[in-house]
């Protein structure tokens, strides 16, 4: 079966749990006071999906606003992006919008985006309504997941979904490169908000 190698990037405000989600998924580890990420971490995991296998190269970035200047170094050539917010922090959810905008205008055209509402083990302190988050993502045609890096809830499903959407969106490139070199050129034209062709493009 074919293996596809692809780069994905984690984005989101500081301390929302980007590193924790990646670590939980890749190494099944959780640290309450995860070391703050300066610059970026690099992790990989091979994912088996029904259609084949995907090698996810996760570029886990630093969340503080000042580092945004170098973020484009990281999402360049990324096939997927995981945008994380903290359900107990309204401000972190507001940042999601600006990340989506930035990715749609700056990143690869067919980049697959998923949004994670993290720390859902802290339901009592929730500040963002679940319906509100879902409605927002539905409008953007982006899948939303409730996750908890602490309990592991939703983490596996989210990365699986990301992997399979990326596989669908890029399977043309798996075979011979002839056909898609032409497709690559077309992307030079500005086609904003073109959704990836994943069948599961809708929201949950």
């Amino acid at each position, binding site marked *: 079966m074919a293996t596809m190698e692809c780069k994905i990037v984690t984005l989101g405000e*500081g*301390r929302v749990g980007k*590193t924790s989600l990646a*670590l939980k998924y890749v190494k099944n*580890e959780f*640290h309450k*006071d*995860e*070391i*703050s*990420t*300066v*610059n*970026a*971490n*690099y*992790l*990989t995991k091979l994912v088996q999906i029904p259609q084949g296998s995907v090698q996810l*190269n996760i570029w886990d970035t*630093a969340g*503080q606003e*000042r*580092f945004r*200047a*170098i973020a484009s*170094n990281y999402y360049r050539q990324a096939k997927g992006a995981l945008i994380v917010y903290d359900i107990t922090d309204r401000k972190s959810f507001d940042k999601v919008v600006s990340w989506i905008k930035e990715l749609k205008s700056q990143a690869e055209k067919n980049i697959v985006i998923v949004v994670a509402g993290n720390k859902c083990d802290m339901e009592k302190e929730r500040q963002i309504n679940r319906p509100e988050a879902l409605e927002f993502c539905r409008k953007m045609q982006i899948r939303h997941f409730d996750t908890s890096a602490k309990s592991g809830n939703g983490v596996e499903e989210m990365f699986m979904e990301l992997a399979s959407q990326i596989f669908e969106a890029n399977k043309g490139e798996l075979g011979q490169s002839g056909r898609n070199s032409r497709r690559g050129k077309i992307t030079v034209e500005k086609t904003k908000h073109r959704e990836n062709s994943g069948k599961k493009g809708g929201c949950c």
Partner: protein
Amino acid sequence: MSKTIHAFYLEKNQDTCDIGKKWLSMTVLPDNSEHYYYNLLKASFEKEFLMNSNKQIDLDIPRTFSECSYFSKGKGNIILQRVLYALTRYNPALGYVQGMNYIAACLLYHCKESDAFWLLLRLFYDYNLVQNYLPRLPGLEKHSHVLEYLLIEHLPDLFEHFNRNGIIVQMFATEWCLTLFTSLLSLENSSFFLTKFFEFGWVFFYKFVIEVLDRLKDKILLIDNTMEILDILKPIRATSTKAANEFLKNLEMYEKLTWKKVVKIACLRKINEEVVNYLCENFEAFTQLEHESKDHCNDMYIMP
């Protein structure tokens, strides 16, 4: 937590040790340094526009060297917070940037509060560390530029190998620049690095990077995979002490190493300091050119 911070006149914290005194001897502090620090700290609670910066500080404190009980349970955690608050009050426009917390903690490990604060200020403004944290991170660009030159000069095969694997200096050296290696070396070992840095400045930093890369070179050249190479250069870690030891093991070739030894060996390295200084001094001109040509390209792109 803010209640405890407001109690300015806590019992005196530990005095500055010999290592801290050595650092102080290499810089000049104003006469009334302690008094000035406490005034600044007091003022830091009166400015609302510092709220954002301070919030990030609060988030980062529990995860700065949390394996050390002085910072996780002891009062080190409040003192670190106060030093960082005072620092952002000193230059509100700069604010707090992640990375500062590690350096501040390492200074505090050996110094009393006000001394640590002043040493931090000295690093920022006498050693131009501040450039690393300014918007667009210009210092980072500069150091990457110099390191790239040094790689071509001293480790050309490694530089080629990085190129082939799509690796640029920023991908692994950013954290080293922003934390002066303290996040990697951890509390116990950072003092060796910082002492040489106070003495020789960025030239020592560059030598240290080249020493580390030279020692990793043979391992890296065998790997033709971007992620695996980056994992060697910037391993993901849970606690810093353990990670510092694991990283150190990777640097060993024939002999048993300590970080103190690596610092010593790196310091003896020869690099062309004239060229390095030249590159640093002229860097602003380079970037201006670069930005101009980028703007130029953008203009061209927008034109129908």
